[in-house]
């Protein structure tokens, strides 16, 4: 779950958090403004040493550790980094600045800001994945900044809708729907990985969850309208929509000869959810 927005820091509102963030990512050009006298912190050489020449770049700082491009947990150095070209190859560093910088003084503000940011990420992911987008640059690269909140809400919503529509055994319906969808997403991802495909586990989970959105809409309509014919039509349309949304990502992830092997289980899962929606009365 990465943070991709940049909120400029206000030098006038220096709180503890802003100072911590500045300590992590300070440049020699942006020397910290006057701090409150009570926070007499031991300063790091780059911002407090009396450096007469602006071109002097202290070579004593620990060099920035570039994040490794292999899927191995990497540690980004938290010491201030000199403004060298490695900056360009470290989007993580910039993102961390904005992430920290979005926490001002009180507790309520950061909650709202972070919540708004997460909500907007959910909405943008949804638009990317589910809605027809002629400018989609590469369907295989959808959901770069994946998040699992969207899928979580959609699965719970689907379970709740199914449970509401059921007249008997409501708890079992909910539990079955939730377990089916959650386990199904994990198993489908493992299936692609075992077929020798190249996907990232959480990205795929996220995508399969987001593709449930049309089925959610279908389940809602079926809950409100109890006619069997309407249900079948609605479920068929939303099923086709879900499969269409999931298709590009899944098919680009595997060897073209194994496309059907990867896609068939996905369709099977969505079809079984569709049957669940129709059959519940």
């Amino acid at each position, binding site marked *: 779950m990465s943070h991709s927005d940049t909120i400029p820091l206000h030098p006038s509102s220096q709180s503890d958090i802003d100072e911590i963030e500045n300590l992590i990512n300070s440049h020699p050009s942006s020397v910290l403004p006057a701090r409150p006298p009570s926070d007499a912190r031991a300063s790091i050489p780059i911002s407090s040493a009396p450096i007469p020449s602006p071109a002097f770049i202290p070579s004593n700082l620990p060099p920035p550790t570039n994040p*490794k491009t292999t899927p191995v947990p990497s540690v980004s150095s938290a010491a201030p980094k000199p403004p060298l070209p490695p900056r360009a190859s470290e989007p993580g560093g910039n993102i961390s600045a904005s992430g920290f910088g979005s926490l001002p003084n009180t507790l309520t503000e950061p909650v709202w800001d972070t919540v708004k940011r997460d909500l907007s990420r959910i909405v943008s992911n949804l638009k990317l994945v589910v809605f027809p987008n002629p400018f989609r640059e590469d369907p295989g690269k959808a959901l770069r900044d*994946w998040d699992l909140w969207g899928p*979580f809400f959609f699965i*719970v919503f689907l379970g709740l809708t199914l449970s509401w529509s059921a007249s008997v055994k409501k708890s079992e319906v909910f539990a079955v729907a*939730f377990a089916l969808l959650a386990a199904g997403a994990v198993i489908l991802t493992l299936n692609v990985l075992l077929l020798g495909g190249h996907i990232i586990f*959480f990205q795929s989970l996220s995508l399969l969850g987001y593709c449930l959105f049309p089925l959610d809409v279908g389940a809602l309509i079926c809950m409100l309208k109890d006619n069997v014919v309407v249900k079948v039509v609605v479920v068929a349309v939303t099923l086709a929509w879900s499969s269409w949304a999931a298709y590009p990502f899944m098919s680009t992830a595997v060897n073209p000869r194994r496309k059907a092997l990867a896609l068939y289980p996905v369709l099977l899962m969505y079809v079984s959810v569709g049957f669940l929606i129709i059959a519940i009365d």
Partner: protein
Amino acid sequence: MDLNPPAGENYGHPEICFFHVVFKAAALAFYMLSALFFDSFVIIFVVTVLLSALDFWVVKNVSGRILVGLRWWNEINEEGESVWKFECLDQESLARMNKKDSWLFWWTLYLTAVVWIFFGIFSLIRFQADYILVVGVCLILSIANIVGFTKCRKDAKKQLQAFATQNLTSRLSSTIQSAFTVV
């Protein structure tokens, strides 16, 4: 780790500590007591899992940063590979963190996972698959946070040694250099 909070200090961020603890306690309490008040499993499931998810978000985004100065997240880089990032504050700020805050943070983190495992064993014995599902989801959320922050802390300790030695030599050379430039 000691059982008692470090004495002679107050909490550095009492509201954040409160929020850190309240969602965990609410999820556990609701799970325990809901059987007395609610018939419907669906409500128990949704509310417990929702509280657990809220707690996960609060710990990861708010209390982790403020109470212990650690942060972890995942990114997908240009080549399309997943990279886990762990970040900690520099050593001066880490040393200045309130000891009581971090004691509370780590203790509640581990304790909730243990209590959920305990509940899970209970449900397993009673063969209640529904409740095992709830416990499973909450356990996954707690363990994700534990793993993330523990990895962060280990890396922070490793960095401490590296930074300490480098800092020493850097301060020496910077004082020497500033002495020369002043002349």
